[in-house]
């Protein structure tokens, strides 16, 4: 009886060290690596998404500046209807523009068009400037609108 108890105790004491000596099985390692890969891929897609968002913001900033310049020029034109460009019918003008400076700083990579529409409405003329730029994947569109009348051109 006493000998049997001693054997059981010895077996219990040896069990943890025996487990350690056995190590991990191939299946366990493969599952760990697979989990790690899933984590990496999901993180990578999130990072790529961040990069895309930041680049898109730069595109909108550049495109917005171009469109704003056109609106500002029209807002500052002498408002004397029906003289051009504030005529009795809608006037549309297109301007070719480019954005996205290349890495070498010698040229622009993305072409686009800014369409300016000056439409007579009650109380003045409605100016709509829409810039469409051929960015990779999906085109970037920025649109600004304002009302121009005899009070908006500033003092001259």
């Amino acid at each position: 009886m006493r000998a049997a108890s001693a054997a059981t105790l010895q077996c219990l004491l040896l069990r943890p060290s025996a487990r350690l000596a056995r190590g991990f099985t191939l299946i366990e390692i493969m599952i760990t690596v697979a989990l790690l890969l899933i984590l990496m891929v999901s993180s990578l897609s999130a990072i790529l998404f961040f990069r895309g968002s930041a680049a898109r913001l730069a595109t909108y900033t550049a495109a917005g500046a171009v469109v704003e310049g056109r609106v500002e020029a029209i807002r500052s034109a002498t408002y004397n209807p029906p003289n051009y460009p504030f005529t009795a019918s809608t006037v549309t003008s297109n301007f070719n523009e480019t954005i996205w400076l290349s890495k070498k700083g010698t040229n622009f990579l993305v072409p686009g068009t800014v369409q300016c529409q000056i439409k007579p409405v009650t109380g003045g003329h409605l100016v709509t400037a829409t810039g469409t730029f051929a960015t990779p994947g999906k085109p970037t569109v920025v649109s600004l609108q304002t009302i121009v009348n005899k009070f908006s051109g500033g003092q001259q």
Partner: protein
Amino acid sequence: MEILVALGISTLVLSGAITFMDMAGKSLSGTTSQTVINQRAANASEFVFRRVRFATLVSTTNDASGNTLRLGFDDDLTIDKDNNGKPYDDTDHYEVLQFQNGDGRDETIADNRLIYKPSEDRTNFLVLIPSGVQKLPGRKIFAVTNLSAVYVNFAVADTYAHDGYQTCDIQTVFVARNRPASTNTFTILP
């Protein structure tokens, strides 16, 4: 044998993780840089816009390079200083927006900056963009036409080369509302 296999797998996993972390770090650094650049470019552009709009005089006088924009302002709308019948279009003080390169070369963009002097006569200035200001191909930073339309063209680029290349370009036109000549700005633009 088992130890060798275990070492091989560990090396594979570790090298993958290190490469991933390195690329992820650079990518996040580039994303942050891009965001900062966007903010700097847009803020500087809007700042120039605000000052030009209320200026009574816009010029790049004595600066054929187009690096300096000089703006005149009327400080007292009740006094007609130049006796032209318009009390709002005088020039009582001048402000300056200036592109500066630290080493005399525009190509080295790390030390290129854009500053604003609230008074031409004083040495105090505000740094609008501290570094990375780049000229656009074939264009001046500031160009004035018809005494009223100010063309503003510049880019802000990332000067830290290890995290990719980020840039944001600004090409716009601002017009002084208190312009002296009665000109139709719309027709003179290209």
